[in-house]
């Protein structure tokens, strides 16, 4: 039997852990509503103005503190981020799922080695991948821009989708596909009616993961983004270099909300299947 103080110590540990992880995030959210334009650490009142200001609306917290010189720039970065994230999610989900299916279905020479190669981009340091992609693009004369970011993100996001879908496939009963073929369904019908519904939670999970990572990626994108194709993380990083301003809290809170919605969506879909 555990003694009372041991139990209390364990509870304290649990609480401290949560505080350690979530306090900074909670702080960002709270500060995004602080109306003090000079020192964000001193609470001076509740306001939505930072949200309005990043959207380009004039507010009482006048122009002198307004950091986002051009809202167009911010919105441009958001637009780039969304274009990149949607494209890479689509491409890497399709290719990653196909790869997972191929490795599940066929046995071939050096399969383990090939599998290892697929895991590699996940453990490779971002900075190495970033430099390598930059050298590659420049060396082969690929113009840096949204397209190069999409290609760059796909190189490692395919691996993430592959891993998630493979895990789902490993749990699938492989006689289901045989039963379908036995009942007269060709490969395509079997895939559409049996295999895809079975692995769909994995495919959706992989796609959401790819979307979040793509939206969030800084290091690799930083290397391979062109001058006019800044994504949101790269843009925020640029803002930070010139000092932490209250708008950043508002942007961070909005990004957090988006991630939270996506994660909830993922959990919901997982439960339904």
């Amino acid at each position, binding site marked *: 039997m555990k003694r009372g103080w041991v139990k209390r110590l364990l509870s304290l540990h649990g609480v401290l852990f949560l505080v350690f992880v979530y306090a900074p995030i909670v702080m960002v959210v709270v500060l995004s509503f602080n109306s003090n334009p000079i020192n964000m650490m001193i609470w001076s009142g509740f306001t939505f103005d930072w949200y309005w200001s990043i959207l380009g609306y004039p507010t009482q917290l006048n122009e002198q503190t307004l950091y986002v010189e051009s809202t167009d720039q911010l919105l441009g970065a958001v637009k780039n981020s969304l274009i990149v994230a949607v494209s890479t999610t689509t491409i890497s989900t399709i290719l990653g799922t196909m790869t997972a299916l191929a490795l599940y279905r066929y046995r071939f020479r050096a399969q383990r080695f090939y599998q290892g190669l697929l895991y590699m981009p996940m453990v490779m340091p971002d900075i190495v991948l970033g430099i390598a992609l930059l050298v590659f693009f420049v060396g082969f004369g690929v113009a840096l821009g949204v397209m190069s970011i999409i290609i760059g993100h796909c190189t490692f996001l395919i691996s993430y989708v592959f891993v998630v879908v493979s895990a789902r496939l490993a749990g699938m009963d492989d006689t289901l596909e045989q039963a379908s*073929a036995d009942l*007269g*369904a060709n490969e395509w019908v079997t895939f559409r009616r049996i295999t895809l519904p*079975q692995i769909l939670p994995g495919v959706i999970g992989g796609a959401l993961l790819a979307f979040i990572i793509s939206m969030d990626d800084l290091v690799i994108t930083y290397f391979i983004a062109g001058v006019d194709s800044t994504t949101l993380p790269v843009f925020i990083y640029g803002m930070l270099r010139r000092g932490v301003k209250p708008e950043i809290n508002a942007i961070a809170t909005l990004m957090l909300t988006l991630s939270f919605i996506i994660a909830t969506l993922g959990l919901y879909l997982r439960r339904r299947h």
Partner: protein
Amino acid sequence: MKADEEAQDQAASIAEVREAVKRFAAPEGGIVTALDGVSLKVRPSEFVTLLGPSGCGKTTLLRAISGFEELDAGEVRIAGAPMTGVPPHRRPVNTVFQNYALFPHLSVGDNVGYGLDVAGVPRAERNTRVGETLERIGLDGYERRRPDQLSGGQRQRVALARAIINQPKLLLLDEPLSALDRNLRKAMQLELKNLQHDLGICFVFVTHDQEEALTMSDRVAVLNAGRIEQVAAPETHYHRPATRFVAEFIGDGALFSGRVEGPAKDPVLVTADGLRFAVASGTPAGQEATLLLRPEHLEAAPKSPRASHGVIEARLEQSVFLGALHQFVCRLANGATIIAAPTGAGAGNLSEVAIGDSIRLAYRRDQPHLIPEVGDGA
């Protein structure tokens, strides 16, 4: 066989496997021959069982018929048409899988109707046939259930319904009853047999359970190490097994190998360690053979046995009461065990013998089957 006879025979067989050979690369290296020249014919409306221990090739043979395994040599014909290169979805056979393989994301109705949906059968007809098929297997009204809401026996029925709805020429069943408990299995055996009779389609049934095979089949093919040992009716397997393997695999019994000696009127099988067993008169001397003594052949020997009987000296080791019959486990001079399960008056005499006492067993010399030794020692 003459050509026209062969043609006639071919038309009469629903499925035919000719000299099938299949080899696999074993995971631990080397080559495993799963099918080693197997030939088999399935006649119309016949219930054929492939029986054998695990690894004997029975499932591989089934999968060669359904198209999930390609043969290295030989061929499969279904209704006379060669199936080489024909993928599973174009073969007129359906399978009941060992684990049922019901589609978990589809309802019972959609599982059963899958074959019709894929074939593009109109909705109204499809629904009628699904309803009829479910009714036939005693699951009417279950259309909207999910597979995970069913019991093991019900899943088994759904798998069966799904496989018969397309009215295949041949239904393949891969140990479909192995996951059910004993009572349910017994009930399903009879039901399957009835269903097969009603539908009038061929069943090819795979099992390692000899009792199951004997209960249901018109003919049983006993497989061992990729070869067919014997194809025959269950009674033939039991009373006149062709090989030692079949004799050991089906039913209880003691086997004694030796050489037949003595005059034609009173031949005796002499084993290597000197045991002597009287065998049916007329058995030619000099033949190497194996004698199969079933428990029901043996009874207590009378004081002065007749010449028509063989007598065995043994020691009673154990007496087991099994309800309908009584088994007496006896040990012979060479250490071999033999089981006697006499019927009728013979049982009473044996019951009086105390455990450990010597005992004399007798059998009608023409009753036990004598398996002639074949060249390769099978």
